């Protein structure tokens, strides 16, 4: 059996970091939370990450900032953005940059699984 795919969850909100990896693990993925973009970039899991679930609005380095940084580093990790703010304004920009999906918090389990399906289909 192949090794479970690793999904990194980058969000400054603690409840997301607590809840989302648990749910992802229930679906058979490996999941690891990061409290900031910098923490993720500095981690040794960067190269192993198969998919990134990324909060848009974070202090210091935002989600789209990280998206640009990864591109610059040549890391083509599929990204699913999540946000508690109005999604309409950022959606076109992040999708244009190659994001798989942008989910508005709160999002349903179905929406999450659909987005992951799309991410791994592409990936």
């Amino acid at each position, binding site marked *: 059996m192949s090794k479970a795919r690793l999904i990194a969850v980058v969000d400054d909100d603690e*409840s997301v970091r607590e*809840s*989302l990896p*648990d*749910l992802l693990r*229930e679906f058979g993925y490996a999941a690891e939370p990061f409290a900031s973009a910098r923490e993720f970039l500095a981690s040794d899991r960067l190269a192993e990450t198969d998919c990134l679930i990324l909060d848009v609005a974070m202090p210091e380095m935002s989600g789209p900032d990280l998206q640009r940084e990864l591109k610059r580093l040549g890391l083509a990790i599929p990204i699913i953005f999540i946000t*508690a*703010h109005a999604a309409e304004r950022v959606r076109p920009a992040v999708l244009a940059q190659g994001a798989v999906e942008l989910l508005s*918090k*709160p999002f349903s389990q179905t929406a999450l699984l659909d987005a992951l399906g799309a991410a791994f289909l592409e990936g």
Partner: protein
Amino acid sequence: METAFDRVIDLLPGLVWTALADGQADFVNRRWCEYTGLSFDQARGRGWQAAVHPDDRARLVEGWLGFIQSGCSGELEARLRRHDGEYRWFLFRVCPIPDASGEIVKWGGINTDIEDRKQAEKALRALERRARMIVDGLPAMITLMTPEGELGNANQYVLEFFGETIEVLKSRPVGFSFHPDDRAEGLARWRHSVQTGHPYDHEARLRRADGVYRWFHTIGFPLRDDDGRILVWYLLQTDIDDRRQSEDKLRRSEAFLAEAQRVSATGSFSWIFATNEIVWSEQIYRMFGLDPDEPVSLERIASRVHPDDVPLFEDMIARARRHESGLEYEHRLVMPDGSIKHLHLIAHGVPDQHGQMEYIGAVQDVTDRRHSEEALGALRSEIAHMARITSLGALTASIAHEVNQPLSGIITNANTCLKMLAADPPNVAGAQETARRTVRDGNRAADVISRLRALFGKKDIALEPVDLNEAVREVIALAWSDLQRGRVVVRSELAWDLPQIMGDRVQLQQVILNLLLNAADAMKDVEDRSRRVLIRTRPEDGDCVGLCVQDVGVGFDAKAAEKLFEAFYTSKGDGMGIGLSVSRSIIENHGGRLWATLNEGPGATFSFCIPVRPGDGPGAPGPGADGAMAANAPPRLGAGS
């Protein structure tokens, strides 16, 4: 023997005589004898000389002998004694009478009475002498010029001024004394007068004996004889140098004033009310764009006044009619090109010597100032509007974020929980953990909501005496630019006897601003009627004050009247639906009520009613109403919990 020829000679209207070649008289006619009273025998030879005036006799005889010697005809004048002893002047005309061979054999003569002419000449001489005396005696410079335009004579004042004798002056060319700058024109005018006979009238500088040029006003008029021929030109020269200098000074100060008025865009005027005499400075003509050559009248002024300001203009006239001493107005003009000018007028009335009210005043073009004020007002209003929009927008966004975060956690945890329980075997410990997190996030969401309620329903309000009328005026001023842009006309009917209330001025103004802008929004698609808003304040029963904002907009669905005040209910595509709910909570915190009604005609009316003393409210609910405002209670209002 008397021949027919002799009879004719005798009857000729003159004294006729003949003499021999040696001058001895050999004939005098009857008229000669009748005039002198001498007989022919007495006159014969040299006898006629007895009739000649003794003073003239020697001269006449000498002349007569001269003619005889030269053999030429000639004329002489002398007085002849009449038969009654009176001497009269006669013209003696004589001519030689030659025979066939050309030798003078006789002399013939005729004497004509020229006494009348002599008298006239004498009278004229006397007249001229008198005129000369007058000319010399007048304390003015008088110069006589010949019909050809040359200097004839000048009185002593002229000679004194130029410091020369008449001979020296005559030797100079005409126009010699003119200032070089004035000479060409002066001479041209003089030549024109000499040629046409038109009077001469000119101002020019003349050089005085000491070399100083002084301004003179010269009037020249011709003296003509009965045939209309010019005999002499009289020039009257008046020294106007002092007058000219003060005129120059006046002109200079007028020029300074005009420049000052131009720079400051200010004009001055005078207005005698009773006679409607209006005098404007140049600058006012420029402001009004009217022709300075046409007289100013109230009608001409009124034709430029902005139609909306005509009542102001009429009020000014009414006040002038009542002789009020101070007038001050700001009104607009509509120029022919449609542009608008703002004028500020200040006038002060003083009764003149006839007791008529004369207003002296100044008008300033304040268009630029008004434009910058308007721009500033627009900016201020823009900022206020932006602040309102952005604060509501930001509030909504932050509400959404604050609520969405825990909701997200709740849903994710619930999903995880379900998944764990559905597993075989169920992961009960994990499910418990996620369920605990769900509860925690639920509480967190509830916290957000209660914080929001605290925010909206601010428990403490700053109590101060508030003049609601004043608050309304400020809000109208604040919203003015928005309302102008939306072509909304605001009318206010503010009760003069409105009592002050105790409340939070800023919050109440937020409510009024909200109602006013809502009214404007409700009319933004109205095109078939003017977009009017009426703001009215009035004292209400039970020690309350009321305010209503009435529009002619689209109104609202009668069934939704109460929903209007629910948070997040909105009929506007771009609205947040928070304004009215916040407004209602503010009014309720003041112990008042806010409600909406549909008008009989188009539009809606939003009204609130607030007790003058907090706690006395018509609908004041909650703890604040019962005793919290007792004597020494702190100035604090309890909101309905």
